[in-house]
């Protein structure tokens, strides 16, 4: 459904969104829209709705909610609120010419980190693809299937050269690994150790034929925007560290 938003359409839309946010910020800062986006109500709405959506998914297991248009539109709102508060935070920190205090840096790392992480996942989603295939020993594989069963022809051939399973004392598999050749080049795959295929593309060993041991299940994940998401995650980790070190500011905003 969202494939029409694949690169470069998603990049263009992202730039248009970013431009509109910056333009609104720079030219219409006093407008009702920008004032609302910067209000505590907008933040409560963003966090609150996200919380309710997650609760619904958590209780019912309906993950498909995250692929519906209302969710897509809500996430655009969520990112917009984040973008505006980041712009305000940056202006407040720099307007006076004062150096950014630790609290401001923490604010920026956490909020910008969250925006970058969500942003790359969101705008990059149409370019993300997961394919699985069964690989039998010594038989080259050229085709894979997505979750809906559609065939995808690979740009390379994969051949399962060898496969071993080790069992623990309790009879449960403790380790399984496969030697796969990618266009003739051998590599070893095991859980937690994927193989890098190319920009944003990795090969995983996900499962195997537990009854007869005749084949392995391999998975190709194409996620070219993932590097950006990782940058966002690292920014949030830095922010979380600063949250730990700095702790809360004293405030008495309590009504008894």
């Amino acid at each position: 459904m969202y494939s029409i938003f694949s690169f470069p359409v998603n990049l263009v839309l992202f730039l248009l969104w970013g431009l509109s946010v910056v333009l609104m910020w720079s030219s219409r800062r006093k407008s009702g829209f920008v004032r609302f986006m910067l209000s505590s109500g907008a933040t409560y709405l963003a966090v609150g709705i996200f919380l309710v959506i997650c609760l619904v998914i958590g209780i019912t297991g309906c993950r498909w909610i995250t692929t519906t248009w209302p969710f897509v539109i809500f996430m655009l709102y969520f990112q917009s609120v984040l973008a505006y508060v980041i712009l305000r935070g940056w202006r407040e920190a720099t307007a006076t010419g004062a150096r950014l205090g630790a609290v401001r840096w923490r604010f920026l790392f956490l909020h910008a980190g969250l925006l970058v992480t969500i942003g790359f996942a969101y705008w990059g989603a149409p370019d993300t693809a997961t394919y699985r295939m069964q690989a039998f020993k010594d038989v080259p594989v050229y085709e894979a299937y997505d979750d809906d069963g559609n065939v995808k022809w690979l740009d390379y051939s994969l051949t399962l050269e060898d496969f071993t399973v080790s069992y623990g004392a309790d009879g449960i598999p403790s380790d399984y690994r496969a030697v796969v050749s990618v266009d003739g080049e051998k590599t070893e795959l095991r859980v937690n150790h994927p193989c890098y295929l190319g920009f944003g593309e990795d090969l995983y060993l996900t499962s195997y034929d537990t009854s007869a041991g005749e084949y392995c299940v391999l998975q190709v994940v194409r996620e070219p925007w993932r590097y950006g998401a990782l940058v966002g995650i690292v920014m949030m980790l830095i922010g979380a560290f600063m949250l730990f070190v700095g702790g809360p500011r004293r405030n008495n905003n309590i009504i008894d």
Partner: protein
Amino acid sequence: MTWDLFILFGILSAVFSAGGAIFALCANDHWSVSSVRYRQRRGWAILLSVVSVLVLASFIVLLWISLGRPPLKTMGETRLWYSFFALLSGLLTYAWWRFRWILSFSTVLATVFIVINILRPEIHDQSLMPALQSPWFIPHVTVYMFSYSLLGCAFLIALIGLFKKGKDLFEAADTLVYIGTAFLTFGMLTGAIWAKQAWGHYWSWDPKETWAMVTWLCYVLYIHMRLMGRTSRKTLCLLLIFSFICLQMCWWGVNYLPAAQDSIHVYNR
């Protein structure tokens, strides 16, 4: 070292911790903090609490060595860490803020989990399944357990805050929530990086992940409510209590949800 000896270590640790809690309670708030009797009782409270933490820590280390893998896999093992971190965070909170009742609460919290582990250890699984064999495993789980114990203390403060007024209560709750949320964030993000390595995606809305997000958003909401406006004491306390219920859902409640039967986080059942 086997779980059979846990009854000894568990009870010893609980007894030392209870001793520390009693000394802390006996150090009256109205006494001068520099008075000898206050310093003596506080000193005993800290000493006994440190011993209690060390007893549990030594069991964890010995169990780790005997299993040949970190004891972080089964529910029984995570409860062990939870008891350990509950005692540790109670001790740190007492040492820093001098709340004389916090050691009593952390003792109760830790003892509950020690007793559950003695009665229902769930320790039969000996090997470590392939997905858990990763350098991310130890930081991911211990960071979560540490944050759970801090947020457990915040939950106890919220329970008191429902009935008692006091600014210092929220000072403590805020600090516990900030540090707890920082560690919750470490846990969630290291989990995302690990998930990418193990399963191919940073985030897949798996039931455990979804409840982790629910928990995180609850505490994020609390932080924003504290920063952004005047909120009633009761609302804040109820939010902290609700957040802790969600945290419990994320930790173990999710395993009992019908929606979670296809979860990929199935190794701790």
